[in-house]
């Protein structure tokens, strides 16, 4: 006797019963906003020991950055599968653009384009935390001071840590040096990764170089203001506040394959030659990745 079986004629019918997820209606959005305001007024939200405020980041800071991310710079993210969904990892990226917009865009990319919606914990320069308002806002956004103690603590806590080893040398370099990596600090990021045994994920960001093309550096003004550089771009300071609008360049962010460090053991952090070699390896990988992305991009603004 032949076996009776149910054969589904139209397999897609099963799915069509589920209505597509719709955007929340306006009244739900307003109600959510009111609930957010209530939480903010009564202080009933969580912050961590680094000063990270996920409530503020999710409901105010990220929504403010999203139009810039998707409309203005039309950021394309590649290789998110190289970023682990759980556990600590150190993302090392190139730095450029006069103002650290690249760090903010990478944060949006990892939150919105990664399936696990990873939080990107940035390591910022001293200057960021010296400045009033900027410093406290950076902490609320998840950043902390770039020092080995904080980096290792975040990595051990299973966070995705972001570091820009070029620092001010990278972000404040003249436009003619665009897409050439500067010296990678003193390799402190490699030491932190080795001590904690977490992988290093090289990340190349293309597009940030053109947002504020720095054609000059007013050194005297910079010294007066206590800044590492004072940018002169074709529009700033000539056009005043209008010069603060970034040029709408096309951005590509690519995460490379993780460089594993656990096999070296924590004692390897004391071996300067290994640290130098790993630093160079990461730097070379990012530089190659930048060249590939530049070939992919048809023009600066498209």
């Amino acid at each position, binding site marked *: 006797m032949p076996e009776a079986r149910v054969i589904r004629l139209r397999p897609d*019918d099963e799915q069509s019963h589920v209505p597509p997820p719709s955007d929340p209606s306006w009244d739900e959005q307003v*109600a959510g906003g009111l609930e957010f305001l209530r939480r903010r007024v*009564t*202080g009933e939200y969580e912050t961590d020991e680094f000063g990270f405020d996920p409530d503020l980041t999710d409901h105010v800071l990220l929504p403010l950055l999203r139009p810039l991310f998707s409309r203005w710079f039309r950021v394309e993210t590649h290789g998110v599968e190289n970023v682990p969904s759980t556990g600590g990892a150190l993302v090392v990226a190139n730095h450029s653009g006069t103002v650290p917009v690249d760090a903010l865009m990478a944060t949006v990319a990892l939150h919105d384009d990664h399936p696990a919606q990873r939080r990107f914990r940035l390591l910022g320069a001293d200057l960021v935390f010296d400045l009033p308002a900027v410093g406290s806002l950076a902490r609320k956004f998840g950043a902390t001071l770039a020092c080995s103690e904080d980096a290792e603590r975040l990595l051990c806590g299973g966070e995705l840590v972001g570091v820009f080893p070029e620092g001010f040398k990278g972000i404040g370099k003249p436009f003619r040096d665009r897409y050439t990596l500067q010296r990678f600090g003193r390799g402190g990021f490699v030491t932190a990764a080795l001590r904690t045994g977490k992988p290093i994920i090289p990340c190349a960001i293309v597009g940030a170089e053109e947002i504020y093309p720095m054609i000059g550096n007013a050194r005297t003004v910079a010294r007066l203001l206590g800044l590492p550089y004072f940018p002169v771009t074709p529009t700033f300071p000539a056009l005043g506040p209008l010069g603060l609008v970034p040029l709408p360049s096309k951005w590509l962010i690519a995460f490379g394959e993780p460089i594993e460090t656990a096999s070296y053991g924590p004692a390897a952090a004391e071996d300067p030659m290994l640290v130098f070699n790993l630093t160079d390896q990461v730097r070379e990988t990012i530089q190659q990745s930048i060249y590939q992305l530049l070939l992919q991009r048809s023009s600066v603004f498209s």
Partner: protein
Amino acid sequence: MPPAVVLVTGVSRWLGGALAAELARDPAIDRVIGVDTVPPSAELLRRLGRTEFVRADIRNPLIGKVISTAAVDTVVHMNISSTPAGAGGRGAMKELNVIGTMQLLAACQRAPSVRRLVLKSTSAVYGASPRDPAVFTEAMQARRVPSGGFAKDSLDIEGYVRAFSRRRPDVGVAVLRFTNFIGPRIDSVLSGFLRMPVVPTALGYDARVQLLHEDDALGVLTRATTGEFTGTVNAGGEGTLLLSQVIRRLGRLQLPVPSPALGSLGRLTRRFGYVDYSPEQMRFLNFGRVVDTTVLRTEFGYTPRYSTAEALADYAHTVPPVVPPDLVGDVAARAQGLVARAGSVASTVGTTVHGRLRPAPASPGLRAVRDA
């Protein structure tokens, strides 16, 4: 082995008195001697139980006589003032803190009976600056050494205690670095600051605050006195809050003021009997400070019962909020109700309009039948 004779300095203040009372309840301890320059209040005296009170100044060599005649074996040094207001000016405060400690340690060094010293220190020794790591462990030092005030005094005191422990290696020394205290009964700098209905803070700064409940502070001190732990340990509650969050949770109003104006405002609030903003206090309120408490929970063996948020909630019972959270919740709920009603009205209008203009879309379940 529990201590036989304990000497507690600074017993007339809340925490010192509470510790003496707690030790006096322990039958394993023979004698508890409390020392202070001012006599304890009548209420505190009742709680102190069998504690013997000696009115003495630790800056006076008399303290040595007290230690040797009573054969004190454990000294708990808590007579360290954190505000100039409590000690009668910065000069007197420094005199009490630094010279007092030196005298006490000199007396302890001479007394062969002493075999344990507990110092109530502070996490202020780590300083507070934007260049600090987010979380301090016991092995770290201040990136910017505090230049004055309570933190400098505490650093000096810890230095003298280290020197003492080198000269008397047979004495077990425990240094307790406490975060800010909070609770319904304790009177700390922070509790006075947060009692103001409108709390002025520096514009553009938001400190991370870690608190320790008064009961946990007492628990840590008791364990340090009766236990065997030697070394340095950070004592603070689990978790942190931002200063703005603390102010909001207490239902206070925050008034951000540009930092240069904060100093003169501090002088004004001091005149009205509230707190003063010393430069050091201001740095703390700008940047905050968080300590790692792994050593406290593992080696020292004490897990605070209150987290930072719970300790603050307990303190909040004693300060009536200026902005009641119920009221905020009520307003929010009412506004949400209004929005929901407006939303439903809009959607019914929307569907009736749509229904008239367009035929209803076929429900997806019927599609297979229709196609067949």
